C-alpha cells in the first residue's frame, strides 16, 4: 500500500499498462502536456508512435477509437471533460456501442475512454455535466465511476485489460483526494459494489463523487442514532443489482445519491430496479438526492444550492426513517 492522489493513481496505471502491453495506444486533445495531469509523462515515455496529441475534433476521435480497436489495437482515448462525450456522441452511440453486436460479435473493441465529470467548481453549464445516464441508456458500453484512488487504479486496470468499450469517468475536480492504493497488479472486477460503510437502518447508495458526502452523512446520522449503510456501485454498467438489493433487503430503506440530473438519471434507474425487485422488503419511499433537471449555473451559491451534499442526504434519510418510525408508533 502507498498513499496516492486519485489523479496520480490514474497516471501510474496509464504508465504501467502502456509499459506492459506494447499494443496499447493513447490519444486525445492535449494529452502531451496533460491538462488534468493524468496523462503526464505518457507522451515523453512512449512517444509519438503510440501517443497522439490530437487536434480538437471529438466527432472523429470517438470514431477513431473504434477503428483503431477494430484494427487490433488496445485503445485509450482521453476526452478531457465529460461534456465532450456529447460532442463525440455520434460514434459513441452508433459505432462504439453497437458495432460488435451488429457484426454478430466479429470484433472486440478494447477501448477505454477517460473523461472527468461533474460540477461544483463554477465551471458553468458546459463543463459541469455528469453524462453517464446517456452512456448507460445507449447500451453497449461499460461505465465506471471510481470514488477512491484504489478503485481508480483497480477499475482502470480492469478497463484497459478488458475487451469492451468502457468509460472511465474521473472525479477529476474533487479527485485530488489521497488514499491508500495497493501496490503491484491490482484489478477491481466490474459489477461488484463496495460497501463503503456498514449499517442497518437505511441504505445510502452513492455514485462516484457522491460517496464522500454520503460517508459524511453516515457519520452525522450515527450521531443521531441512525445506522446507515453506504454502498458504492463502482460500476454502473455492469451494475451490481444483487449487491444493492442485498443491502436494501437488509435495511428496508433506500436513499440514492447521484450527481447526474434527476430525470432518467442513475438514481432513477436504481430506484426503478429496487421498486420492482425489493418492493416487499421496502419499509419506506425510495428517496433520490440528485441534481435537479437544470444545467449547472455559474455562481457558487446557485451551484451549491442544487448540488447534493451531506445535509440533503441526512434530510432525505430522516424523512424516511421518521416516516417509518411513525408507521410503527
Amino acid at each position, binding site marked *: 500500500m502507498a498513499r496516492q492522489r486519485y489523479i496520480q493513481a490514474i497516471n501510474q496505471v496509464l504508465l504501467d499498462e502502456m509499459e506492459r502491453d506494447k499494443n496499447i495506444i493513447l490519444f486525445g486533445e492535449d494529452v502531451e502536456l496533460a491538462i488534468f495531469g493524468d496523462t503526464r509523462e505518457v507522451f515523453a515515455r512512449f512517444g509519438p508512435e503510440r501517443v497522439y496529441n490530437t487536434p480538437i475534433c471529438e466527432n472523429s476521435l470517438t*470514431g477513431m477509437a473504434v477503428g483503431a480497436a477494430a484494427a487490433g*489495437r488496445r485503445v485509450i482515448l482521453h476526452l478531457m471533460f465529460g461534456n465532450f462525450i456529447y460532442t463525440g456522441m455520434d460514434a459513441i452511440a452508433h459505432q462504439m456501442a453497437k458495432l460488435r453486436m451488429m457484426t454478430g460479435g466479429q*470484433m472486440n473493441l478494447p477501448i477505454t475512454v477517460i473523461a472527468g465529470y461533474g460540477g461544483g467548481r463554477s465551471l458553468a453549464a458546459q463543463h459541469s455535466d455528469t453524462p453517464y445516464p446517456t452512456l448507460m441508456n445507449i*447500451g453497449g458500453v461499460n461505465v465506471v465511476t471510481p470514488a477512491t484512488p484504489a478503485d481508480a487504479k483497480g477499475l482502470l486496470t480492469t478497463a484497459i485489460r478488458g*475487451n469492451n468499450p468502457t468509460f472511465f469517468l474521473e472525479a477529476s475536480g474533487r479527485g485530488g483526494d489521497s488514499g491508500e492504493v495497493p501496490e503491484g497488479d491490482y484489478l477491481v472486477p466490474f459489477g461488484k459494489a463496495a460497501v463503503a460503510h456498514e449499517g442497518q437502518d437505511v441504505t445510502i447508495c452513492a455514485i462516484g463523487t457522491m460517496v464522500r458526502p454520503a460517508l459524511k452523512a453516515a457519520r452525522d446520522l450515527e450521531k443521531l442514532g441512525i445506522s446507515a449503510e453506504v454502498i458504492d456501485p463502482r460500476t454502473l454498467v455492469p451494475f451490481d443489482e444483487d449487491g444493492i438489493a442485498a443491502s436494501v433487503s437488509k435495511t428496508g430503506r433506500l436513499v440514492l445519491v447521484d450527481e447526474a440530473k434527476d430525470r432518467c438519471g442513475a438514481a432513477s434507474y436504481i430506484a426503478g430496479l429496487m421498486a420492482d425487485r425489493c418492493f416487499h422488503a421496502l419499509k419506506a419511499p425510495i428517496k433520490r438526492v440528485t441534481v435537479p433537471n437544470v444545467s449547472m449555473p455559474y455562481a457558487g451559491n446557485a451551484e451549491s444550492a442544487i448540488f447534493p451534499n451531506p445535509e440533503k442526504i441526512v434530510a432525505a434519510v430522516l424523512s424516511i426513517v421518521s416516516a417509518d418510525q411513525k408507521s410503527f408508533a
Partner: protein
Amino acid sequence: MSQLSNVDEAKRAEWMELYERMLLIRRAEERLGKEAQAGNLPGGVHLYIGQEASGVGVCSVLEDTDFITSTHRGHGHFLAKGGDLKAMFAELWGKRTGICKGMGGSMHVADVSKGILGANGIVGGGIAIAAGAAMGIKVAGEKKVAVCLFGDGAANQGVLMESLNMSAVWSFPVIWVLENNGLSEFTITRKVTAGEFTDRARAVGLPTITVDGNDVLAVQAAMKEAVDRAKSGGGSTFIETLTYRIRGHLEAEDAFLGGYSYRTQDEIDVWKAPDKDPILRFAARLIQEGAATAEELEELDAQVIGQVDEAVRYALDSEDADPELVFDITFSGQRA
C-alpha cells in the same frame, strides 16, 4: 478462351475476375431488389446497381488484411472485397447463418476476416473508423491500408474534414474513396455543396485523383497508385470516382416519393446505356480486346445467376436468427 486476344493470359484472367465480380454484384442486387419489392426481406435495401466498377476497381488491389469501411449502400463493397454471397444473403434474410448472424442486416454487412469493417447506416459513419484503423496500422508498423468508401452526401459531414486533416498530419495509410453518384437520397448533392470535394482534400495537402467511376480499370489504376503510396509510407490519398445510382435511393423509393421525383427517366437512361453502364462497357471492352466472346460472357452470366439462386435457397433454408444472441454478443465475455 477467345482466339484473337490482345491481352495476355494473366491480364485476361484478371479482367475476367473484375467482370465476374461486377456481374455478381449486379445479379445479386437485381434479385435483392425483386425480393425486397415482393416483401420477402425483413428490412429495406439500398442498391449499388450502376456503381459496381467503383467498388470492384477499388477492392481489386486490396488484400484480405487491408481494411475497408463502407456505407448503407454496402453490398457491392462487401462482395468486391471478397465477402461471401451466401452469408450475405442469409444476413439479409435475417438468418443465423448470416455473416453477422442476422444481427446486422443490409446496412451492416461485415466480414472482419476479410478486412470488411462493416457497412454503416450512419452517413459518414465509416470515416473516422477508417482514420482510426489507419492509425492502428501505423502504430503497429503493418504493411496494410484502410480504405474509406463514402458518398457525396457523406462528404458534407464535418467528420470528413477532421479525419482528412489528421490523415494528412500523420501520413496515415488511409485512402479516401468518394463515390460521387450525384445524389443524397432525393437531393441533388450539387445543390447543397459549394465547390469541389477534391479541393477540400487538397486544402489539407492530400494528393487527389478524380476518375471515371464507371471504368473499372481506371478506378483500379488510381487505387494502385494510392495503395503504393500508402504502403510505402507516403500517406493518404483522396480519390473521387464519378458514377451514378441507377436504382432508387432504396427499393420502394416510389412509395416514399409519393408521386414526386428528383430526376428524369432520361437521365437514368443515359447512365444505363451501353457506353455508360459499367458492366456493359467492360463487356464490350473484353470482347473488343478479344479477352472473351459474347457467348462466354453469357455463359458466365448464367453461372452467376445460378450462384445467386443458390444463395437465395441457402438463405431461405437457413434457420432463423438466435434471438438470445444479442445478449451474448453486445459485450465480449459479459452478458448485456
